[in-house]
């Protein structure tokens, strides 16, 4: 897994050296007892389900047994639940979602022999302790992969629709442009932000405007507004990237691919670290190189997608993982 920075990696390494995890040798040969807490419903086909699927895969591999607790979005009610799992002898307790970050960190202080994993933004890295690891994902790389795919589709002008200009959305859009330029430097992006995260009509109008300006493909960074993008694209007979859910059945007709979370690599790293005694103070960032961000199944609507696209993605992942390729900083000021 890619660490947030070299400094944090070294800090984590020092922490592992300084704090041996009691009981790790006896854990090594056994299935870990894992509790996964999610803010919503585990079958949502989105963020919560990514945690369920990550845990299921580990269970299928015989590495863990697990219990999942849903609807844990309120820290006042989730903290006692976390505490209960710690008292019941669970080896690893994962709070999947920023909502669970503070409760996880609070309870972890009282149970130094139990391993805890929290989610959060980059600031979480500085809060991790000898028995807590942390996780976030790279918003910019979420956009980068979409742009990288757009550059493989043979279009000269790509539209980009965002909602409000919040920092993480801006980073995703910078990533998108970086990905597109990385694969097709001759392609241009025309971009619009609607200012709203929930107004589908504004997104539809914005998409129509981009199509009128010559966009041959439209990417959207916003899930809430994706319905508007899909509807306008369908009317104009063009395709999209980034529309999630069914969009009233339109996603199947217009959307080629989206990017989604894959929690397995992070959960696997937690489990391996518990087993080998290296757990604690490590911060994992889901991105492309560690396959924490992956493409959804490709919907090759008009046979425009290169047959070997997934192989090309795998090659990109390999280059990033080996360090042969690096990505620019998408979080800096706009150029």
């Amino acid at each position, binding site marked *: 897994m890619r660490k947030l920075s070299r400094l944090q990696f070294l800090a984590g390494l020092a922490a592992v050296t300084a704090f041996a995890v009691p009981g790790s040798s006896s854990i090594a040969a056994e299935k870990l007892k894992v509790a996964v807490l999610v*803010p*919503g419903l585990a079958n949502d086909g989105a963020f919560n389900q990514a945690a369920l699927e990550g845990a299921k895969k580990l269970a299928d591999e015989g590495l863990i047994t697990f219990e999942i607790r849903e609807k844990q*979005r309120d820290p006042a009610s989730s903290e006692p639940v976390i505490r209960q799992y710690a008292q019941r002898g669970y080896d690893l307790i994962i709070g999947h979602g920023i909502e669970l970050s503070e409760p996880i960190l609070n309870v972890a202080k009282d149970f130094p022999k139990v391993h805890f994993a929290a989610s959060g933004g980059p600031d979480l890295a500085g809060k991790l302790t000898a028995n807590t690891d942390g996780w976030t994902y790279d918003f910019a790389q979420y956009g980068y992969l979409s742009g990288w795919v757009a550059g493989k589709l043979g279009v000269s002008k790509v539209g980009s629709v965002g909602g409000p*200009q919040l920092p993480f959305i801006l980073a995703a859009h910078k990533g998108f442009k970086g990905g597109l330029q990385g694969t097709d430097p001759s392609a241009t992006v025309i971009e619009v932000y609607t200012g709203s995260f929930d*107004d589908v009509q504004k997104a539809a109008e914005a998409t129509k405007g981009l199509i009128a300006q010559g966009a041959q493909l439209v990417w959207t960074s916003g899930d809430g*507004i994706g319905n508007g993008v899909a509807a306008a694209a369908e009317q104009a007979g063009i395709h999209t990237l980034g529309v999630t859910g069914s969009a009233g059945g339109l996603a199947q007709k217009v959307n080629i691919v989206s990017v989604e979370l894959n929690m397995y690599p992070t959960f696997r790293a937690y489990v391996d670290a518990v087993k080998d005694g290296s757990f604690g103070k490590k911060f994992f960032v889901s991105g492309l190189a560690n396959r924490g961000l992956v493409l959804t199944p490709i919907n090759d609507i008009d046979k425009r997608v290169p047959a070997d696209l997934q192989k090309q993605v795998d090659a990109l992942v390999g280059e990033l993982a080996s360090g042969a390729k690096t990505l620019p900083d998408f979080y800096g000021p706009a150029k």
Partner: protein
Amino acid sequence: MVRRWAAALAVIGLAGVGGAGAVPSIDIAAAATSWLPQFVLTGTKTEPTYIEHIRLERNGDVFVLQGGAPAGMTPSRVSVALHADGTLSYLNCPTEMRCHGATPPSGFLASAAILAAIRERQLSGRFPLIAYGGLQLVCIPAEQLGIHDAVLDPCIEAQSGAVIAQRHRRSGEFDGPSLDPWSITLSTSPVQLTSSTQSSSM
């Protein structure tokens, strides 16, 4: 509070009375008289990579929407005011948003647009109640709010008038900006809103 619920229940009736397939319905204008003038509604919407926390406030004729970001990150904030003549204006206009002369808001802030349409007598009649988790919703055809080429219809929670879900025109399913029904909380305590001087007429 009890009176409000009783009044709200009084406007719920059965459309097609006597038919075996009678569908419960609501008189939208009558229901609006019992909607809460002040509330804070919170809920979540699940995105592929995070949970979005949404907060909709009503304080009299001012509606404020916050959301669009994971917990702990700076959210987007938009507010609109409903005037006595039924017109709406944005109290703050986010960067890049077209506020002046725009079509009415079609997301959660359609709560204000629906009330405006009722006050202007452009929206009336009975609408079927639709179950959404343990809640009862009324979905309003977006054209009746002045929205053309609608993709989704906003759906209000019948007791409060707050838009909490959207129904897709094509599939008839709840989609897009719709709160997870189990996550919704409604507080009727008076709210303190941050005033803003910037106003843009729609």
